[in-house]
Structure formats: C-alpha cells, structure tokens
C-alpha cells in the first residue's frame, strides 16, 4: 500500500481492534470487582477513557486551529472540524454514560453537584456553538472563524471546570471525589488499555474522515476544471 494515509488507517485499525478486544475482555473477565461500588465500577473504564479522549480531541482542534491561522492551509481546517465533531460525540457519550453511572451509584439520573458531569454539559454547549458559527460564516471567513472559535472554546474548558467547581464547593462540599484516584494496579492496567483503545479509535476515525475530505477536495477541483473547459 503506497498511500501513507491508507497505511495509517490499516495500522490504527488493527491497533484499535486489538486494544478494544483486550480491554473489554480484561475489564469484564479479569479485573476484580470493586469492593465499594461492585459491578457498576466497570462502567468506569470506558467512561473515563471516552471523557479524556474527548478532551484530547478538543486539544487537537485547538492546536490545528492555531496551525490553520498561521498557514491558512485547508488541511488544518479539516482537522479542526473533524476533531471538534468527534470530540462532541465523545462528550455526549461521556454525559450519557455518566448519567447511567449516577443512576446506578446514587439512584438519580442527574446530579448537578458532580462537577465533571456539569462541566461536560457546558462543554457540549460550548462546542455545539462551533457548528452554529461554522454554518453561518461564509467564504474564507468560515475556516478562520472556526479556527478562532476552536481556540476560544478550548481555553474556556478549564475555566468552566474551575468555575463550576468553585460554585459548588461553596454551596455544598464536594461529596464525590475523583473515583479513579486510588485504584489498585489490577484495575489501572485495564483502564490504561481502554484509554489507549479509545485514543487509537479517535485517530482512526480522524484519519478516515480526513481521507474523505481529501477526496471531496479532489472532486471539487475536477468539477472546477470541467467548468473551465
């Protein structure tokens, strides 16, 4: 296979498949049951991985946005757009699985007092606006405004998290501290595998979609040439 993009897809695909299979087998069959939370703790592995990878996606969008503004190369705009979309899907997944966990662990579907759940809701709002802006801006502004907004939104993420946390610590002390802080090694391993699997999946999907955009650009160019005759 001579096309480097195709080779990357192959490598990432194999990697994703192996890591996902290992992770699922490991966390269901090998990892011990959590003494405190029981079975539901098994949600944790992929839930937290997806959450972290969605932040990674937004980080990639941030860097790609800065690169686009510097170079004005359309490829970077593609990276921003695809990363934000993937990150948003993963953030939605995070909130849904988080909500399921909340129901299992604390008996309610939604608790605002969990700062992570609240922050991810804000992040979804923040990045949804990206698509509103993008579909509204036209011409060369579209890519530039999108890039600028991807930068602003990524800077907003830690600020929002901090604001949510501060607001809650005043009204009621944080009850649920980070669940993964003190994990025995037998659990940590499977978490790392799950995280690696999701990271590989993110880059795989990114690569596939970049190739779609490449094809689309080539087709657009052909169309222009045909029109010009």
């Amino acid at each position, binding site marked *: 296979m001579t096309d480097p993009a195709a080779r990357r897809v192959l490598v990432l695909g194999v990697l994703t498949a192996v890591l996902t299979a290992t992770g699922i087998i490991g966390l269901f069959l090998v990892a011990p049951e959590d003494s405190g939370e029981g079975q539901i703790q098994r949600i944790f592995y992929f839930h937290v991985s997806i959450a972290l990878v969605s932040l990674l996606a937004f980080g990639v969008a941030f860097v790609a946005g800065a690169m686009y503004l510097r170079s004005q190369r359309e490829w970077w705009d593609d990276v921003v757009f695809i990363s934000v979309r993937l990150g948003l899907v993963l953030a939605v997944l995070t909130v849904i699985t988080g909500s399921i966990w909340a129901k299992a662990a604390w008996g309610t579907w939604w608790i605002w007092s969990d700062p992570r759940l609240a922050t991810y809701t804000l992040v979804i709002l923040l990045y949804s606006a990206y698509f509103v802006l993008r579909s509204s801006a*036209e*011409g*060369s502004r579209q890519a530039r405004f999108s890039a600028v907004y991807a930068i602003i939104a990524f800077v907003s993420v830690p600020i929002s998290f901090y604001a949510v946390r501060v607001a809650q610590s005043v009204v009621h002390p944080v009850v649920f501290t980070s669940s993964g802080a003190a994990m025995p090694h037998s659990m940590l391993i499977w978490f790392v595998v799950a995280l690696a699997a999701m990271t590989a999946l993110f880059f795989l999907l990114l690569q596939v979609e970049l190739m779609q955009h490449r094809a689309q650009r080539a087709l*657009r160019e052909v169309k*222009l040439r045909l029109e010009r005759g």
Partner: protein
Amino acid sequence: MTADDGALVDARGVVRSFGGRRAVDGVDLCVRPGERVAVVGPNGAGKTTLLRILATLLRPEAGTLTIAGAAIPKQSQAAREHIGYLGHDPMVYLDLTAQQNLELFCDLYGVPDAPERIAAALSRVGLVARTHDPVRTFSRGMAQRLGIARLTLHAPRLLLLDEPYTGLDTQGTRILDELLGGLGGREAIVVVTHELDRALELAGEVVVMRRGRVAARVGTAGVGLDRFRTDYQELTA
C-alpha cells in the same frame, strides 16, 4: 523577484477566489507615481475584487503584492497610510456631523493640522454651511461629496476609485474632476468603471478584465472612443 522600487502598486500573479471560483486569477499590475489606470470589463470580471485587494481589504491568496513599497499582507498598516479608497458609498457615519466624521478620520490617519485640513476640505466640496449638521440630513449627492472630502484628508498617494461617479450630482462630478485633474506626478489613480468614455478620458492606460484575468492593456493616447468600443466588445465577447 525584484520589486519595482518606485511603483505604488506592484502586483504579480495575484489570485483571490470565493468558494472555489477564482474571482481574480493571476493578475499582474504595475502603477507608478503619476500614472492613471482604468480597469474595465463586464460584470463579474473581477474588477472590484482586484480593487479591494489593492485597497488591502482582501488578502491575495497567491502571488505577491506591494503597495507603496510595503509588502501585503505583512506590512498592510504601512501601506494603508498611502491609500485613499472611494466606493459606491460615501463611507461616513450618518449619525455624526460632517465635522465629527472628518475629525474621526483625521485622528485615524494621524493628520497633524486637523482643524485647517477639515476646513479646507469642507470648503473644497462646498459643505461649509453644513459643518455641524448630521449627515443623515444630507442629500445623497452631498453625502457623496463629504466622502470625497474624507478621501482627501490624509493626502493619499494611491487613489483607488470604484465607480466613483455613480451617485454623484453635477457639482460632485465637477469637484471630483477638479480633484483628479489637480493631482501631480506624485499620486497615482486606479479607477474601476463600466463607462468606457470616462475610462478613456481619465486614464493613460486601460486594463480590460475578463473572467478574473487581464484580457488586454490599451494605451489611450490617440485612441478614439468608437474604435475602443469595438475593440472592447471583441475582447469581452
């Protein structure tokens, strides 16, 4: 690439596209002090886009562009000092008075002796009596004349005019003719127009554009209007 040192405009292979369509597709243009260039062409030929690129309002996508010795877009600020741009609209605030508008632009251009310049500019366009009236109360022709006054405040060396005569009353036309006629060897003019007679009258060189490219360059010395019109129709057909 060696830039033409004295040139006010030095464009080489300038490209700008909108949504995949190349509005300006590799235009070369060199304008030296004292030269007057008219850009003509059918609708959609890229005349206005070219002028807006020269005015630093649009960045060229490819090619190199130097305005008054400053590379665009890196040194746009330096170039802007020398540019005077007049479009279809007077480009003054309707809710400010004539005086306030001109003060604003004097401040933006860092003009040193603002009060004198403003008084002189207003008397040149015959709006002294209207100095303290908001522009909203002006007729269209008067507002357009105020636009001409704004154009002259900072004594630009490169005048970029986009259909400057549309919307002008007879007095405004006379004032603009006087202004352009009074320019010396320091200044250069690039005017976009669809009126061929104006183009011949105003400019020493006419650039005919078609589909974003320069179709022809014609020196106007000794060319009659009828002859030019038939040539033009052939070029743009």
